């Protein structure tokens, strides 16, 4: 699904990622943990194609190089990023936004664009599956949403767009236990042999609900340790310091 080789990234001449290697196969869930400033969010941004970074190394997604591919085309190819801080866009109805988004993804896949009725049917189905009140979709995009609502909205968008590869950038931060369960449900219910996930988190707590196949520790721009699920529990006890 995703092959990362010797990935380096700098912003404003400051190097953040310093030669990162990672291979994610279809159907796998990988978790990335690490201390503040280790480059977790940079990794998410660089994978999504965000402007402003100087990037070198290889990025392969479903057998294709991503290196020169702009953000929206990566998204259309099925790469999704659940934002750590979802943006507010005043005056834009969330449903309209999502419909536009879904249709541009469908168009790129060569599928027929959906009309409003068909779209709303999908929304109803997915939101009830996650136990999310679909009323939030009638509001302006993320405007006046609570922290929990914003994150739930990201997960709902993920469900509706149905990407091949999803990155969750600290989606669990600041969530209460119910919201956390919603996020986990969003991932677990989509876990199939074709779909992969990269879950970025500070805390082991989320991994009680989403069982990852692999856990990586990111420190100073590199993956310094890789293990399976129990690595997270170990880290919870010992902290990151011991690793350096």
């Amino acid at each position: 699904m995703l092959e990362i080789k010797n990935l380096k990234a700098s912003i404003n001449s400051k190097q953040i990622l310093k030669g990162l290697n990672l291979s994610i196969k279809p159907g796998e869930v990988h978790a990335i943990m690490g201390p503040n400033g280790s480059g977790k969010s940079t990794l998410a941004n660089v994978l999504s194609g965000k402007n402003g970074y100087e990037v070198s190394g290889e990025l392969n997604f479903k057998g294709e190089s991503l290196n020169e591919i702009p953000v929206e085309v990566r998204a259309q190819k099925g790469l999704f990023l659940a934002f750590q801080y979802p943006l507010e866009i005043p005056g834009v109805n969330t449903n309209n936004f999502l419909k536009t988004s879904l249709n541009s993804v469908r168009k790129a896949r060569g599928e027929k664009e959906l009309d409003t009725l068909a779209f709303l049917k999908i929304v109803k189905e997915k939101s009830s599956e996650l136990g999310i009140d679909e009323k939030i979709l009638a509001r302006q995009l993320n405007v006046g949403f609570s922290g929990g609502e914003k994150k739930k909205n990201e997960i709902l968008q993920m469900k509706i767009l149905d990407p091949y590869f999803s990155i969750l950038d600290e989606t669990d931060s600041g969530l209460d236990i119910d919201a956390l369960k919603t996020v986990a449900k969003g991932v677990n219910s989509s876990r199939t042999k074709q779909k992969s996930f990269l879950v970025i988190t500070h805390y082991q707590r989320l991994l009680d609900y989403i069982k990852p196949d692999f856990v990586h520790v990111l420190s100073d721009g590199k993956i310094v340790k890789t293990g399976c699920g129990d690595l997270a529990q170990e880290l919870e006890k010992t902290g990151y310091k011991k690793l350096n």
Partner: protein
Amino acid sequence: MKQQELEKSKEYKYGFTTDIESVRAPKGLNEDVIKFISNIKKEPEWMLKWRLKAFNRLKNLKEPNWQKPKYPKIDYQDLYYYSAPKSASDKPKNLNEVDPKLIETYKKLGIPLEEQKRLSGIAVDAVFDSVSVATTFKDELTKKGIIFCPISEAIRNHPELVKKYLGSVIPLTDHYFATLNSAVFTDGSFVYIPEGVRCPMELSTYFRINASETGQFERTLIIADKGSYVSYLEGCTAPMRDENQLHAANVELIALDDAEIKYSTVQNWYPGDKDGVGGIYNFVTKRGACRGKNSKISWTQVETGSAITWKYPSCILQGDNSVGEFYSIAITNNHQKADTGTKMIHLGKNTKSKIISKGISAGYADNTYRGLVDINKKASNARNYTQCDSLLMGNKCGAHTVPYIKNKNYSSIVEHEATTSKINEEQLYYCNQRGLNQEEAIGLIVNGFCKEVLQQLPMEFAVEAQKLVGISLEGSVG
């Protein structure tokens, strides 16, 4: 004027010219040309006198020059003041009689008359160049006593109404361009809604500039008698051309006791090319008088075209409890310039006004909001709320807000809010990540920014306007 212009039409979606032979008055501004216009319109003597009075007054007037966008000197003797499609002298009675070339033009514009008739229920008084060629739904309106016709027809058939109201809001002695219009106006719409009648459909006119080097001098007069209601839509597109063209229209609205007029404009005239060559000078005077008590006038404008847009649709709130509203979106891209806003003149007691202005600048464009809220001594308990938001795209464009507030009454309240912001890179990134390309993302964000104004537009216009907002900003982020 034919083929090479068609060739150039790629950049501007509506840039095409129909090669219908034009009947023209000779170039220049003089008494003979005014007589020619009056004669070809079969006007009565009093109308010609009125025009000549304006022309004499014009001799002593100078063009105003306090506006921010400056323009090269206009040679008024080098313009044509009248041009009409030839076939118009023999007026068609139904669509079959309309010149097929004209129908084709409408189709390019996306306004096939027959479909509009059937689907949207809009009566269209279509102004092609300077003469109205087709009026639909006339019968249905006539049954209700509504008059909706070209103003040249109203001058002949309803002189008592025209005499009473023409120039009663924009006097003959107003500023240069308004007075010029009074002298040489060619055609436009006339609407009269009788007492207690609610106009059953949106009235609509599409203006187009066609023959080259023709200044357009439209004149519109709308009268809503006591307790009546009307919603009027005006939309403009113009063909591609290199030379600047002057457009100086006058629009007068009069609302009597308990009457309401809603006037919506989508202006998408040729803005000039990417380097600022060509484009329309849109110097328009629009003014409404809330003459009766409890009357209301609401202006909504979406201004995306023209090289220079210079206009202030205004309300004179004479009647007690009358309400004036102004909702505006002004989008300037490349080298376009806009200096637009409104004047709310509070004369009556308990008068209210609301101003919502959204200015968007991209490229090298310059966008100014200029507005006056004037509360007279006698306007007790008057109320105004103004909100001006500016959005900048890139770092070579400008946004300016120039509010004038004159308050001579202690019991009145005036509020003014203004914001200026840059289009947010993070918002764009967020939209891109959801599969939207840069232009879709900008269209979405800008439409959100303009929402309060777009909501004011009638349904038929709202869709077109939303598309236009996106189209106008195409290529503005690179």
